[in-house]
Every structure is written in C-alpha cells, then in structure tokens.
C-alpha cells in the first residue's frame, strides 16, 4: 500500500452532508436533500472499502517483517514512523490537541481489523438505512432535519470507531449520544418522544461519568490515552494485573453499560423507540448501542488483566440477555419487542466479551447489525403499511399483503432465532461455546445464554405469527407494500442475514491479531457439536411453542396469562424497574434538588448572600446620599477640609508625636 488512506474523509463526508442539509435543507427540494444525504455516506463507504482493499486484500509484501511497537518517546509521538503503513495497523495523525508537559492527546485515527469491521458495518448498514429512510420518511415534516441528524450521527459514529485514543473516542461517544437524543426526540411535538430523548441522554450521562473516570485513571496510570500505547505498555509489563486495572476496567464497563443499554442502565433503550423506525434500526440496534461492545474489545488488553472485571462483564451480559428476553415475551408493541430483543442480544455480546471471546462478540455484533437492522426496517415497513399501527394485536395476516416484507422479515426472524445456516446461529453458537468452555462459572453463563436463545426464538416467532400469520384482526386496515427504496435495503440485509455467518472461521482469523485467538474447537470435538445441536434444539423448541400458542390455539396465551397472573403482570410491567428507579433514584434526587439545592442552597444561601450584599450597599448608599446635598458651598467646604487634612497629615511630625505620647503614657503608668 502506498500513500495515505485519507481516513479523515470518512467522518468528514457525512459531516459535510450534515452542514449542507442542516443549514440549507429547509429551502431545498427533497430530491436534493436526499441526494446529498445519500451521497455522503456512500462516499464514506467507498473510502472504507478502498482502505480495506489496500490494507487487507492487496497486502504489502514488506509486511512480512514483524510490526514494531510504538511508544511515546520523550513525549513525542513516534507511532507514525515506527509502524510500517499497511501492515494491519494504520495511524493517521490529524492534528495536535492537548500538549501539556507529559500529557499528549492528539487527533489520531487508528485503523486495524477491529475498527475496519466496525466501519464496514457502520457505513454499510448506515448507507442501507439512509436509502430506506428516503422511502420511509417521504411524507414527514422535517425531512431535511432527519437526514441532517442522520448524517451527523454517521460523522460521530465513524469518529468513535476510528478514534486512536480514548479522548477522541469520547468525542464520538458523546456525539452519537447527541445525535441519538435529537433523533429520538425527532417528533418533538409529542411529549413522550421528547421525554424519551431526555431519558436516553440523562441515563447515558451516568455511563459517561464512568467512562470519564476510567480515562482519568488511564492517564494517571499509563500517562497516555492512546489505545496502542496502552496495549504496548501492558505487553511490556506481563505481571501487571488486577488492582487499578480492575478499577479502570469497571469504570469503562459502566460507560459501556450506559451506551449499550445493559443492566442496570438499559432503561432508556425501550423508550428510545419513540424515534422514527430507521433511527431505531441504525442507532438503537445496529450501530450506536454496539459502541460499548466495541469499546470493551478495543480496550480488551486492560480487561484481560482483570479477571474480576471480565467476570462482571460476563455476568452483566448474561443477566441482561435473560432479563430483557423475558420482558420481550409479553410486549405487544412490535418495536418494543425488537428493543428488548436488542438489549438481550447486546447482552450476548457482553457475555462474549466477558469470556474473553472478543472476536465472537464482534462477530455477533456484525451479524446482529445485519439481522436486527433488517428486523427493524421490516417492522418499519409493516408500520408504514398500516399507517402507523405498532400494536401486534391489531395486525395479522400480513403475509399476503406484504409479500416481500414478509419474506425478508422471515429471514431476520430465523437469523435471530439461531437456526442454521442463517447468520445468527454461527455467532450465537460461538459465544455460547466460548462461555461453556470458560471454567465452571462459564457453564452457568452458558445455561443463561441457552435459555435466552429459547426465549428469543419464542418471542421472535410470536411476533412473526402475530404480525403475518392468521387473519387480519383489524378490518379497517388497508396495507400496501412499501416502495422499492425501502424494499431494496430489506432484500440486501436479508441476504446478509443469511450469508453473514458463513465467514465465521475466516472472520476469527482476520480479527485474531487485534482481538485474540478465538477458542476454536478441535476437529472432531464432540462438545462443540453437542452444544450446537442443543442450541438448534432450543431454538426449534421456542418456535414450536410459539406455533402452539399463536398459530394452533390462539386462546392459549390468554389462558396462560390468566393462570399465571402474578408473573405475567410482573413481565408486562417490565419488572417495575422504571418504577423502582423512579422511587429510589429520581424521587430522592428531585426531593434533594427541590428542598436542599433549591430552597436551602439557592434560595437561602445564595439568595440570602446576594440580598445581604445588595442591602449593605443600599444602606451605605442611603447614608452617603445625605452628603451629596447639592449645596455647592458645602462641597467646597469638604474640599477645603480634605485639603486641610492632607496638609495636616504631611506637616505634623507623627513620629515625634508618638514618642511624646509614649513618654506621657509611660509616665502615667509609673505613677
């Protein structure tokens, strides 16, 4: 590979689209807006493809030599010269940012196998969703605003992925949060949408707090935020583990749970479904919410040194996967089912990270991006066809009216349920296998994952049966198939959902240099085969039960719900987590803010101090006012008195007066 890859173009192009549509879009026809909004991600995707080609397809023969480790030498960045470009790793220094003594943080972009995979997913799936949005958003007000925000999101997301150090990543991290906020609250006239946007933003602040503390700890202990240098320093100290590394890892984990909607911070994601459906597909399923997984994989050198933190990641992942899947069982809003399913699948990715199977987690990230984007877009097509109806109970029988949507949705459902040869099976199976072989505790994690797989299969086929099978339950609906701008991306994603998993082995080999080797089963290993068969069996079981409940005897679910009213209410109310947080966090915080911060601090202390200061000044002013009598001769008298006082001060020999007075006083004392 020769010359620069021009990575800076990847974020910049969508940003130009954002500026163009954001500033001018309101006055331009829709055709121009959508052309610009589509061309920019397309061009960015092209740059990514070119980078991928010149780095990993057309490999430089000089790369046979081992890659040098790069360190900051005497506070100067030496990575550029030391790494032979095009040998798996590529750094681009865009500018200096913070340069204070030993602290050096620069705008660096970093491309390796991991960021390349993410970039391909973000720009590729992102582009498809942009195309889809042209059809989906056609009738909406604020068409230009929507595409401006979408491009803005692409800008920040690519910055996040390309970041060479934690601070640049944080810029992208916050930026995608902003874009997410703007897009969740796209229908800002709707109170619930505005509130959901705020909720997402505020809950994410908690995670960002963790990320920030983690960065401070990194700076304090490594003296750098550069991912490459951190990994190099860790590699140079093989004995270093636990302790502060655990603290760093847990702080970063807190950040990841916020962005990736894991326990205990997942509560914002279901509400985020208030946004337009393409947004749910792009931001809240395929890309942004996977940023936490990407961040853990990116900093996995730290996590690897802390078994405790890794265990926490795994437990959070498994618990979230199971927890969200159970809630997903009873949701009636088509998008909410998918939202809980997303949380659950993200839990899988965390589980994969937690058992140090980073490449499996990233693999699942990729396949999930395909099939979950597909599911959301297909659901969007259904909602579009039904004129905004999202309630599964009012759907049914759509397979005849929406044949293409039905076919693609079927691909998505089978893929997420984990039935081979669809993509979801391979990635899910890899994570489950990695968990199973990960010690004794791994068996429990694996079991949680297996149960989740069964639940996933059940609720996805439940959705499928309710929406597409049987007869229509809403006689007023006149569904119509979506335009080709929406069906095209659906078909491409459906193909990817089928074929995306077939590259598994090559994928692991490709990621191995950055994410560690995947625990591959030896040929003829029975455990792997048995686990795979089990996974397929539970997926089939889930499908069978869904068929039994929602196809065979549709009165059964209601009967079951009635017979188990306790657990059912618990699930329909999502375990009362929102209520619990409301009572334990929000209410005390509000009370504290109202009674202490507002009444005591603001009104009493600050207000009182201001009142006191102002009052004193006014009082003194009122006194001095009398001096300003307006009588000219009194001014002259004061002037003369002042002059006389100054004269007196300079003329009287005060030292001698002091001596005299002292003598007199001492005489009095002696008396």
């Amino acid at each position, binding site marked *: 590979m020769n010359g620069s890859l021009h990575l800076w173009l990847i974020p910049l192009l969508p940003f130009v689209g954002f500026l163009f549509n954001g500033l001018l879009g309101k006055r331009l026809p829709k055709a121009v807006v959508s052309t610009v909004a589509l061309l920019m991600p397309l061009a960015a995707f092209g740059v990514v493809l070119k980078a991928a080609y010149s780095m990993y397809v057309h490999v430089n023969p000089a790369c046979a030599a081992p890659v040098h480790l790069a360190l900051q030498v005497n506070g100067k960045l030496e990575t550029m010269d030391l790494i032979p470009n095009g040998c798996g790793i590529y750094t681009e220094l865009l500018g200096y940012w913070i340069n204070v003594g030993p602290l050096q943080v620069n705008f660096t972009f970093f491309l390796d196998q991991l960021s390349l995979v993410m970039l391909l997913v973000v720009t590729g799936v992102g582009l498809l969703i942009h195309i889809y949005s042209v059809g989906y958003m056609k009738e909406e007000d604020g068409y230009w605003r929507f595409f401006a925000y979408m491009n803005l999101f692409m800008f920040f997301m690519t910055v996040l992925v390309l970041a060479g150090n934690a601070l640049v990543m944080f810029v992208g991290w916050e930026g995608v949060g902003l874009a997410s906020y703007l897009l969740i609250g796209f229908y800002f006239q709707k109170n619930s949408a505005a509130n959901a946007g705020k909720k997402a933003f505020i809950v994410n602040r908690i995670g960002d707090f963790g990320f920030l503390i983690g960065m401070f700890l990194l700076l304090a202990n490594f003296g750098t935020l550069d991912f490459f240098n951190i990994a190099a320093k860790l590699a140079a100290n093989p004995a270093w583990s636990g302790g502060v590394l655990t603290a760093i890892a847990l702080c970063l984990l807190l950040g990841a749970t916020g962005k990736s909607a894991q326990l205990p911070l997942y509560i914002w994601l279901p509400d985020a479904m208030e946004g337009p459906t393409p947004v749910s597909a792009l931001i809240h399923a395929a890309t942004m919410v996977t940023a936490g997984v990407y961040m853990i994989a990116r900093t996995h050198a730290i996590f690897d040194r802390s078994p405790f933190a890794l265990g926490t990641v795994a437990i959070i992942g498994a618990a979230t996967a199971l927890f969200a899947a159970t809630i997903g069982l009873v949701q009636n809003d088509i998008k909410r089912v998918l939202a809980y399913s997303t949380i659950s699948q993200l839990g899988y990715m965390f589980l994969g990270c937690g058992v140090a199977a980073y490449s499996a987690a990233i693999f699942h990230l990729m396949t999930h991006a395909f099939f979950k984007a597909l599911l959301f877009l297909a659901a969007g097509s259904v909602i579009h066809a039904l004129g905004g109806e999202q309630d599964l109970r009012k759907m049914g029988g759509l397979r005849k009216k929406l044949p293409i949507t039905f076919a693609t949705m079927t691909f998505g459902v089978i893929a997420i349920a984990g039935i081979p040869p669809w993509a979801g099976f391979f990635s899910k199976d890899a994570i489950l296998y990695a968990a199973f072989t990960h010690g004794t505790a791994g068996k429990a994690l694996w079991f949680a994952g297996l149960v989740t797989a069964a639940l996933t299969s059940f609720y996805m086929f439940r959705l499928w049966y309710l929406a597409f099978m049987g007869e229509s339950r809403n006689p007023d609906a006149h569904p119509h198939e979506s335009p080709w701008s929406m069906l095209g991306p659906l078909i491409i994603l459906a193909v990817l959902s089928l074929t995306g998993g077939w590259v598994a082995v090559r994928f692991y080999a490709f990621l191995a240099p950055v994410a560690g080797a995947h625990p591959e089963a030896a040929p003829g290993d029975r455990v792997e085969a048995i686990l795979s068969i089990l996974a397929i069996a539970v997926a089939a079981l889930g499908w069978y039960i869904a068929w039994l409940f929602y196809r065979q005897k549709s009165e059964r679910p209601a009967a079951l719900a009635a017979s188990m009213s306790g657990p059912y209410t618990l699930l329909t109310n999502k375990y009362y987590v929102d209520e619990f947080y409301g009572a334990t966090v929000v209410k005390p915080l509000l009370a504290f803010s109202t009674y202490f911060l507002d009444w005591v601090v603001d009104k009493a202390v600050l207000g009182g101090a201001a009142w006191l200061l102002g009052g004193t000044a006014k009082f003194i002013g009122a006194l001095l006012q009398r001096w*300003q009598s*307006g*009588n*000219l*001769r009194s001014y*002259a*008298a004061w002037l*003369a008195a002042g002059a006389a006082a100054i004269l007196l001060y300079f003329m009287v020999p005060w030292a001698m007066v002091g001596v005299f007075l002292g003598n007199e006083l001492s005489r009095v004392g002696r008396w």
Partner: protein
Amino acid sequence: MIPLSWYLLLSAALFSLGVIGFLIKRNLITVFMSIELMLNGVNLSFVTFAHQWHTVKGQIFVFFVMMVAAAEAAVGLAIIIAVFRARATLAVDRIDLMKL
C-alpha cells in the same frame, strides 16, 4: 531684609481669607472675588520662593496664573451676568437648578 516667613504668613492669610469668603459669602460676585483672593495668595508665595531661590520659575508660574485668572474673570463675569438676567438673583444657595 524682611524674612521669608512674613511673606508666607501673609500669603497664607490671604489664601485663608479667600477660602473663608468662598465658604460663607452668599453673593456670587463676592464668592468670585474670594477665588481671586486665593489665587493671589498663592501667587504671593510663588513670588516669594522665586525671590528666595533666585530663579524665575515661580514668576513664570505667576504669569500663567494671572493669565488664567484674567480669562476666568472674563468668562465668570459673563456667566454671572447671564445668571442674573435669568434668575434676577445672585444668591448662591438659590442657584441650585442642578441639584437632584
């Protein structure tokens, strides 16, 4: 030869008379004359010192002061006449339009 202090005492006396007159007199013209008296008191001490130290700087100062005083007298009397025409009085305490 008359000692220095006598001149200075006279100068101080003239100045103080000027100040007192400025403060206690109500008639604007008298107030104006008191100012002239203060200026001349100062002039006297300037001349005294110039004579004492055999320099001309003090006397040059005096010329300047007299010049300013002459200009001031011209302007000041004009103002006084204008005020008298407008208000028909020269009592300082009643010329208080600028008062808040």
